[in-house]
């Protein structure tokens, strides 16, 4: 998982797409609360002066209220006054989207228990990510494809922006999960294909943390969230999301044992075999059985390719030691075998007698690969 790419997507999204509009909702909420507080203060002063009933004087028909988004910070407000609601909003968003990532990651890893279904689900996720990425980049035709939430969901968000509660910014941050933009949905799909609940939660957490700097800067420094000159940033964001979609697409093709993957295309272009010479020699058979030992770490298979003798009964032993990634769902896509490895321990798989050729090994998400070269 390329965490920097996810953080970068968040960074760009913080100044473009829905984050900008959500910032506008937050600033509106803050200014409404400030105005209400000022009105209460004013009414109290009038009551003290004996001007009873003055609080009713606020209904000036036809008069335009102070524009909430353009209102500068009031003279009495401090930097902390403005930063606290922004932090509350981001915290709410971080909590809810991380939880969503955990659930999606767990669901995705459950789906991936069947490598074929997992691969197909990844394929669909990749296609949606690419479409939303092209939309974010403003490619004609794709930029009109949007998720339209039910009216009841948008009503919840609208109510949140009118709340006078001290927790309103936090609750607004939680509520915006109901109105995700295409980029946020793409990150959710990436979380679902991350391979585990923890990885899914981390994807969403890193994304939200990535949105924080630009989001805070715009809201805090300018006190308004009008669309900045964000065309270039939108294009860049779209490219990042498309690349993530292509990465997911390649992972799904790998998991489905497709002959066409980025690796095979690159090898063809280089004019070299798709798989390099095995880095580990074939072990000597003991009692007519050759045992291939492979470490399955959180970062991949070691050795990544191992030789084996054809015509000899073969067993593979995967060694795990505190391994916590989708590699625990290991599959041999071309021979239809798969296994769930424990966090730590040795797991033996009987492959029978092998014929010459290459046997790919992959995690169920297609992110980590290895090969047994039989000759």
């Amino acid at each position: 998982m390329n965490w920097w790419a996810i953080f970068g997507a968040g960074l760009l999204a913080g100044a473009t797409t829905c984050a900008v509009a959500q910032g506008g909702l937050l600033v509106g909420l803050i200014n409404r609360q400030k105005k209400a507080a000022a009105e209460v203060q004013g009414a109290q002063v009038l009551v003290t002066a004996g001007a009873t009933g003055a609080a009713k004087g606020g209904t000036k028909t036809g008069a335009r209220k102070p524009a909430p988004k353009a209102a500068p910070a009031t003279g009495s407000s401090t930097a902390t006054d403005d930063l606290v609601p922004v932090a509350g909003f981001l915290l709410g968003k971080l909590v809810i989207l991380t939880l969503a990532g955990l659930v999606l990651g767990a669901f995705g890893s459950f789906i991936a228990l069947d490598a074929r279904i997992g691969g197909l689900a990844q394929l669909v996720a990749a296609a949606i990510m690419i479409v939303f990425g092209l939309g974010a980049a403003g490619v004609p035709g794709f930029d009109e494809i949007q998720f339209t939430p039910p009216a009841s969901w948008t009503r919840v968000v609208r109510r949140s922006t009118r709340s006078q509660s001290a927790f309103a910014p936090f609750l607004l941050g939680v509520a915006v999960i109901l109105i995700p933009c295409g980029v946020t949905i793409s990150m959710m799909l990436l979380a679902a294909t991350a391979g585990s609940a923890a990885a899914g939660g981390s994807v969403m957490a890193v994304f939200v943390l990535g949105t924080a700097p630009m989001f805070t800067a715009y809201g805090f420094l300018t006190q308004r969230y009008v669309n900045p000159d964000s065309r270039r940033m939108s294009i860049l964001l779209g490219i990042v999301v498309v690349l993530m979609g292509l990465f997911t697409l390649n992972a799904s093709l790998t998991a489905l044992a497709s002959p066409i993957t980025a690796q095979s295309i690159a090898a063809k272009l280089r004019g070299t075999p798709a798989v390099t010479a095995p880095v580990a020699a074939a072990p000597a058979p003991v009692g007519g059985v050759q045992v291939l030992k492979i470490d399955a770490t959180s970062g991949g298979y070691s050795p990544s390719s191992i030789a084996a003798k054809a015509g000899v009964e073969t067993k593979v032993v995967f060694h795990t030691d505190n391994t916590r990634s989708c590699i625990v769902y290991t599959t041999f896509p071309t021979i239809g075998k798969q296994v769930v490895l424990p966090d730590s321990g040795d797991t033996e798989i009987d492959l029978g007698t092998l014929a010459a050729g290459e046997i790919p090994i992959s995690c169920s998400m297609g992110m980590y690969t290895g090969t047994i070269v039989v000759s």
Partner: protein
Amino acid sequence: MSHRTVTVEVAGMHCASCGILVDDCLEDVDGVVSSQTSVKSGQCVAVVTESVTDADVLAAVVEAGYTGTVLATVATS
């Protein structure tokens, strides 16, 4: 009190948040009774009192960070 229904074409919206933001800004204007924005159609339908002009409606749309064009104004009771 008589009302008017103003339909505005809003440009630049790309997600549900944008639609809510437009409604939010419009409903902060005194005399705006309600506002319903559809991101899909790119249109906002605002019900306003006599005191609110088309320019007020467009100013609120600009306030939200978008550009608008009044498509129709219909008087309602």
